[in-house]
């Protein structure tokens, strides 16, 4: 099958296009998704192609339009709600946590909320303290939600359709720095599962666990380490809730050392949860404590060099691996 050259955002647009074409119940709504083509240009051209009933611009009120999306889902539609960034989702947290995640349980199963929410997340573009959060780890704390983080073109292209098929809410986190990444996508690329982690690179020296925007960071570190004779497993979690314990533990059983890379702040982060699970399930395999490489515990700086210093970097990840392997 011949491949197509495209970017992550184009892959996501293709996914939207496919969903809108195949299922009449699907529609997209959010701020600037229509006339503007989406804040990150993901829905560029879709308004022209599918019309204002299917591509709906909303007012600047997250709580309102997420609530409307929940209502539409309950009524039988398959809405895709786009919240511009995870930062603004804070304004819709009550809707997401107390309605979307919980109505199925509170109604004794009578109500389902087959809602998909897409959000941009992450830092690295000098958007400073209020606009650079990575809160997918927080959302992964909530029962009733499925949390996914596509990091590759295949996942950007394939996770949406599978998410729309889920009878319960799915939150898709797209890291802002990934939109411009390009590559070759197979011509018959289609839906992918949203249950399993995938090992993107193999090696027995140590296990690096990561997801989303820090996957390129981890792979870069792995490349550097390979030059020193340390080959590592790099696990792309893909789904943050529920976590694919089996893949993680299986890898740690082989390598005996783990480093988790998470763009959230360390304390109470997803990396802490993963570290706990590794300790619970594979303590007797560990040859060194589990290390975590996370964002510095500060509000994200605006100045470029400070922002870079605060975020996980390939050399920091490589150092952490060297430490657990005992070469430091």
């Amino acid at each position, binding site marked *: 099958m011949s491949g197509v050259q495209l970017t992550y955002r184009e892959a996501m647009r293709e996914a939207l296009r496919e969903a809108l074409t195949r299922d009449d119940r699907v529609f997209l709504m959010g701020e600037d998704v229509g006339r503007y083509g989406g804040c990150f240009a993901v829905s560029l051209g879709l308004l022209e192609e599918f019309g204002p009933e299917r591509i709906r611009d909303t007012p600047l009120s997250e709580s309102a339009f997420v609530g409307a999306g929940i209502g539409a889902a309950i009524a039988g539609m398959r809405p895709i709600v786009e919240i511009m960034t995870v930062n603004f989702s804070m304004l819709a947290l009550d809707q997401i946590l107390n309605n979307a995640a919980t109505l199925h349980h509170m109604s004794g199963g009578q109500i389902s909320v087959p809602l998909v929410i897409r959000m941009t997340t992450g830092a690295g573009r000098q958007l400073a303290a209020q606009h650079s959060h990575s809160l997918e780890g927080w959302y992964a704390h909530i029962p009733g939600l499925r949390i996914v983080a596509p990091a590759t073109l295949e996942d950007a292209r394939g996770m949406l359709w599978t998410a729309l098929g889920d009878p319960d809410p799915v939150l898709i986190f797209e890291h802002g720095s990934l939109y411009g990444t390009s590559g070759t996508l197979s011509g018959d690329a289609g839906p992918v599962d949203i249950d399993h982690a995938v090992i993107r690179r193999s090696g*027995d020296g140590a296990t690096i666990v990561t997801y989303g925007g820090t996957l390129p960071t981890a792979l870069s570190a792995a490349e550097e380490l390979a030059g020193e004779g340390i080959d590592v497993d790099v696990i792309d979690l893909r789904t943050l809730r529920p976590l694919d314990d089996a893949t993680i533990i299986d890898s740690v059983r*082989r390598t*005996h050392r783990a480093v988790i890379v998470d763009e959230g702040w360390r304390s109470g982060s997803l990396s802490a949860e993963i570290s706990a699970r590794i300790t619970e399930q594979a*303590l*007797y*395999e*560990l*040859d*060194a404590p589990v290390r975590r490489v996370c964002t510095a515990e500060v509000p994200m700086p605006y100045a470029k060099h400070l922002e870079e210093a605060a975020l996980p970097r390939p050399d920091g990840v490589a150092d952490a691996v060297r430490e657990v392997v*005992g070469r*430091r």
Partner: protein
Amino acid sequence: MPSLGADMDQGTVVEWLVRPGDTVHKGDIMAVVDTTKAAVEVECFTAGVVQELLVEPGRTVPVGTVLATLAPAESAAEPEPTAQAVPEPRPATQKPAARKPAAAGPQVRKLAAELGVDLATVRGSGKAGAITRADIQQAAERKSKPVPTSGRTKVSPYARRLADELGVDLATITPGGRDGAVHAADIRATAGRPETPRRPQPKRDRVEAMRATTAGLMARSKREIPHYYLTTSVDMFIALEWSHKRNRELPVPDRILPAALLLKATALAAKAVPGFNGHWIDDRFESASTVHLGIAVAMRGGGLAAPAILDASELDLTTLMARLRDLVKRARAGRLRRTEMTSATITVTNLGDLGVDTVHGVIYPPQVALVGFGKVLERPWAVDGLLGVRPIVTATLSADHRVTDGHSGARFLDVLSGRLREPETL
């Protein structure tokens, strides 16, 4: 005293180039030793501080004798480059650079005195290795908060498991130094096994690999060892009656199986008759002083292992039985210790359970004998001049003709069957 030549078995210490208290590093020359051929320098293979010189110059000692003891250095400091860094030509006496006390300004020295910190024990983190106030403070803190000496060494969970598997005594391991904890690499270094990534092999592959190894070994055995075979039938009536009677008093798990009787008898025969217990190495037979009895264990799913029960000739039957049970269990689970895999001095195969009457086995090189036992069968037998029925087991000896001949082989089997006729001596 290292072995510095293939045929060297002793050496004379000519001269010591270090003194107790000296710090040595990997590669430093420690002494000059005379062999029958030439004077050779002995180098140090690890960093440390010389504790005691045990052999004085002029003394001749066998290879393997401890010549000196070293204490591991806390921080093996790199020798500071001095102006005359050129090593003097050997064999003139060479004093390795002693560790100079690092530079410390007057304020630092004052602080050290106040806090009771010995400057000689502090590693400087300042410019050119100078000691800073922070260094002194840290040293003082370390002193006031001594590492809890509850006798508890930090061992990583994986290292602990490995030590158990490889039969390494944790008490003998000094931590690698990085964080004061013992890690897998430290265990492997002691056990002499390099890290091989443990990919979960599909069961078939493992079995095939094992078969391939066994195949190679068997081919080599047949190629190199001139086998001869002797067979004898042993009347097990007395032995089985005796163990039967004993077992009546014992709970099921403690009962002695006939297998244990056969093993012990074999071990005693191997000890009594020379030429069957040991190894053929470098074109000669090296008799072993103890009998480590190899047991051929069939694994479920195929494959054969032959681990050893150590010191089998000295164990009482109950202990031997327990060791056998434990060994077979661990062999089937793939959890054998290295010593068990490599130490057998003679092997026993086929404890008669598979219904074969007679076994003509292939010797496992570098051993020189293999004993096989067939199934215990009720057979017509002459008893006191009359025809009776007795439990008979066929014992076979496969032996290396380079070491023994039919005469010794017959004696071996004679001792073996004799022991089985007097089970109380087992």
